[in-house]
C-alpha cells in the first residue's frame, strides 16, 4: 500500500556542491563519500612557505615525482569517509573483542603447544614495531601527500596500522599472562637480533624517503606484500597446522584487514600507473627497489621460521609478483 504522507514539497535549488557538479558535468546528487573528499584540500594562494620545508608550498604536488592531471582520481574503492570508516572498524573490533574474550575466558592459549607459542613470540611479537613503522609512513603520506582523497585514506590506514600493533600487543600479553617482559624481548629482538636486522633496516630506510608516493609503493605494496603474506598467511597456516588454531581467532582482525586494505592499495597504484608512462616507469622502479630490499631482508626470517624457508619465500614473492603485475608495478 502506498501511503501519502502529507509533507510540504520544497524543491531543492541544486543537488550537490558546485565543485562536485563540475566534476560530474551536471548537477545531480552526490554520494556522502564524494562530498566528504572531493576538492577538500586547499590548492591555491597559500600565504606563507612552510618553515619546515621552505622550497615547497604547504600543499604541493611536487612532493612526489609522479604527476596527475587530477589528484582526485585517487578514489577509495571502499568509499571510506570518517563515518563509514569508524562504523566498519567498530564492528570489526567488536568481533575481535569477542574472540579475545572467548579465548581468555577459557584460557585456550594454554592449549597452544609450546613450540607454536615460541614461534609467535619469535616471529609475531616483534612485528609490533614493523606496524609502528607502517603507521609512521602512512601518516607521512597523509601529511605530505596531495589531494584529500588519498591523504584521508592514508590517515585511516595509518591508524589501522597502530590498531594492528595494538592487537599484536594484546596477543603477546595474552600469551605471557600479562607479563610485559614478552614485549621487551620483542623489542630487543627487533633492535638487536641478527635475523630481524635486515627488516629493521628496510623500515628505517623507508622512514627517510622523501617522495610520498615512493613511500606508498615501498610500504603498502612491496614491504607489506612480503611481510604480511609471510607472517599472516603462511606462518598463520603453519601455526594452525601445529595446533595453534586459537591464535587465529586473535589475528582475525589483521588478516581480514589485509584483504580489505589491499583493495585500496592496489587501486591507488593502478591509478598512478595508468595516468602516464612516466608514472608507470617511476612506480616500476620504486617497486623493484623496495621489493628486492624487502625480499632480501625477510628471507632470513623465512628460513628461521620454516623448515622450507626458501620455498615459502618463493611462494610469497610469487603471490606479490602476480599482484604487482596486475596493478602495473612489476616490470
Amino acid at each position: 500500500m502506498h501511503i501519502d504522507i502529507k509533507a510540504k514539497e520544497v524543491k531543492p535549488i541544486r543537488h550537490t556542491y558546485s565543485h562536485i557538479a563540475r566534476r560530474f558535468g551536471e548537477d545531480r546528487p552526490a554520494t556522502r563519500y564524494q562530498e566528504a573528499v572531493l576538492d577538500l584540500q586547499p590548492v591555491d594562494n597559500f600565504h606563507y612557505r612552510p618553515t619546515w620545508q621552505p622550497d615547497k608550498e604547504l600543499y604541493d604536488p611536487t612532493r612526489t615525482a609522479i604527476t596527475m592531471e587530477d589528484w582526485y582520481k585517487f578514489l577509495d574503492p571502499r568509499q571510506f569517509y570518517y563515518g563509514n570508516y569508524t562504523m566498519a572498524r567498530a564492528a570489526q573490533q567488536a568481533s575481535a573483542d569477542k574472540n579475545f574474550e572467548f579465548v581468555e575466558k577459557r584460557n585456550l592459549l594454554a592449549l597452544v603447544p609450546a613450540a607454536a607459542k615460541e614461534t609467535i613470540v619469535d616471529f609475531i611479537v616483534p612485528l609490533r614495531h614493523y606496524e609502528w613503522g607502517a603507521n609512521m609512513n602512512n601518516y607521512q603520506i597523509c601529511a605530505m601527500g596531495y589531494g584529500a582523497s588519498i591523504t584521508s585514506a592514508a590517515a585511516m590506514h595509518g591508524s589501522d596500522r597502530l590498531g594492528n600493533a595494538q592487537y599484536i600487543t594484546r596477543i603477546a600479553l595474552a600469551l605471557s599472562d600479562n607479563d610485559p617482559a614478552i614485549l621487551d624481548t620483542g623489542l630487543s629482538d627487533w633492535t638487536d637480533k641478527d635475523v630481524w636486522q635486515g627488516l629493521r633496516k628496510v623500515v628505517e630506510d623507508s622512514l627517510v624517503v622523501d617522495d610520498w608516493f615512493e613511500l606508498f609503493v615501498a610500504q603498502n605494496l612491496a614491504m607489506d606484500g612480503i611481510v604480511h603474506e609471510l607472517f599472516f598467511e603462511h606462518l598463520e597456516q603453519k601455526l594452525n597446522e601445529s595446533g595453534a588454531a586459537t591464535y587465529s581467532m586473535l589475528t582475525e582482525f589483521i588478516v581480514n584487514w589485509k584483504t580489505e586494505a589491499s583493495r585500496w592499495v592496489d587501486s591507488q597504484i593502478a591509478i598512478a600507473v595508468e595516468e602516464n608512462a612516466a608514472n608507470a616507469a617511476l612506480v616500476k622502479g620504486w617497486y623493484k627497489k623496495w621489493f628486492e630490499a624487502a625480499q632480501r631482508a625477510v628471507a632470513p626470517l623465512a628460513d628461521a621460521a620454516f623448515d622450507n624457508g626458501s620455498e615459502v619465500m618463493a611462494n610469497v614473492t610469487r603471490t606479490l609478483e602476480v599482484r604487482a603485475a596486475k596493478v602495473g608495478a612489476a616490470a
Partner: protein
Amino acid sequence: MANRINMRDRYKHMTRLGWETSYQPMEKVFPYDRYEGIKVNDWNEWEDPFRMTMDSYWKYQGEKEKKLYAIMDAFSQSNGHLNISDARYVNALKLFLQGVSPLEYQAHRGFARQGRHFTGEGARVACQMQSLDELRHVQTQVHGMSQYNKFFDGFHEFPWWHDRVWYLSVPKSFFDDANSAGPFEFMVAIGFSFEYVLTNLLFVPFMSGAAYNGDMSTVTFGFSAQSDEARHMTLGLQAMQFMLEQHEDNVPIVQRWIDKWLWRGYKVLSLVSAMMDYMLPESPMSWKEAWEMYFEENGGALFNDLARYGITVPSYAEICAKEKDHLSHQVWGILYNHTAAAAMHTWVPDDAKMNWLSEKYPDTFDKYYRPRFEYWRDQEEAGNRYYSQTLPLVCQTCQIPMGFTEIEDPTLVAYRTTEYSGDKYHFCSDPCMKIFTDEPEKFCQAWMPPQQIFQGNCGGEGLPAVLEHYKFNLGADNMDYAGSPDETNWNKWKGLDGAGDGQVKAS
C-alpha cells in the same frame, strides 16, 4: 588466573612502540622538531592526555557517527531547514562552512604532520587521533550543510572561495600561519591557543546559536563533537605544559607564541562576533558576554594556573577588554559595506535587534553605531543601498580591512605602518604590527587579496571580473538579504509570500 595489569601500564604497552633508530640517524627520521629552539630533555616525561587505544577509539567514534548520521538523515528527510527561525540565520552557517570547516581540514593535515614528526611516541599517537577527529569534523560539517546547500545560496563553492575570497583570507592565513610553523609552535597555536583558550568562543556561539534558531542538524553535530573537543583541549594543555616543564629556556619562546596566537585567534573570532550579534535572529548571548565569560573569566583562571611557569596574560588583553564594546559592530559594518563581494547576505538590523544591541552594549551602541545603521536604513529606503565598489586596505597580519578604531577614540580608524626591505606594510593594530616585526620574513609573504586583485591575479580589473573569478552567482550568493533568492524562497516555503497557504501535497 591472569595477572592484572593497570590501565596506565596497558596503555603504555599499546603505544610505546618506537625504538632508537640506528640504520638511519634519529635526526633524519625526525627532522622537524628541533629547529624552533624548544629543548626537550626527555620525551618519556610526556603525560598521555587521554588513554585511548584504537579499538576503543573506533568503538566510541563509530557509535557517535551512527547516531549523528541518523539525525542528519531525518533532518533532510523532514526538510528540517524549514524549522529554523528565519532564513537570515543560514548566513551564520555559510560563514561556518566557508571559513571554519576548511580550517578543520587544515587541522587534520597539520596534526597528521605532527603525528608523524614528533620524536615522542605519546605525542604522536595523541596528534594522530586529533588528526582523525578533525577529518571527522570537516566531513560531518560538509555533510550537515549539504542539506542547506540544496536550498540556500552561499554554500556551493566553499573550497574555491576559501582559497580566494578576500574575507576568507582571514581564517585561511591564520591556519596557513600555523601549518607553516614548526610542530611546537603549531601545538601552541592550534592545540593550546585555539583549542584550549578560544574554542569556546567559536564553538559555543555557533552551536548555541543553532539551538536558539531551531537548527537541529548543527546542534546535533555540536553535541557529538563535544567529547572530541574535550580531548583536543586536554592535548593542547598537555603539549604546552610539557614544553614549559622540559626546560626553562622554553618559557620565553612559549610566551611569545601565546602572545602571537591568542591575538591571531582573537582577530579571526572578530568574524564570529559579527555573526553572534548580527546574523542570529535569536541570540543566546552577545559577543561581549561571551568574551567576558570565556576569555576574561575562564582564561583568567587558566593564566593564574600558568603563572607558576612564569607565563603571563598577554599585554594586549586590555585592548580586547576595551574593544569588546565595539568589535562586532565594526565588523558588521565592514561586511555590510563589502557584501557585493561576499558570498553571504548582510542587512541593517531591525528595530528589535537594535534595541537588543542597545541593551547589551549600553555604553557604545546608541552612541556610535545606531546612528550609522539608521542612516544606512534611510539610504536603503530611498533606494540607495550602498555597496562599496573599491577594495579595502587590509591588515598585513590579520588581513581584516582597516576598520578598527583607536582604543581611546572610537571615531578614528587605527592605522599602523612599518617598513621592511624597502616596502611599506600596513596594520590594523599594535599587536598585529608586533607579530609582523617579530617575523617579517614570514608575514611579508602573505597573499593579500586587494594587492592580488590590483595585480590582475583574480580574474581581471574591476569588481565584475573579480566576482566572476570568485564563481559567485551574482545577486544570489552576494548582496543584501532583502531581495535575495534566499528571501524569496524562504517566504514561498513558509507561505509568507501571500501566494498560497504553503501546504503542498506529497507526490
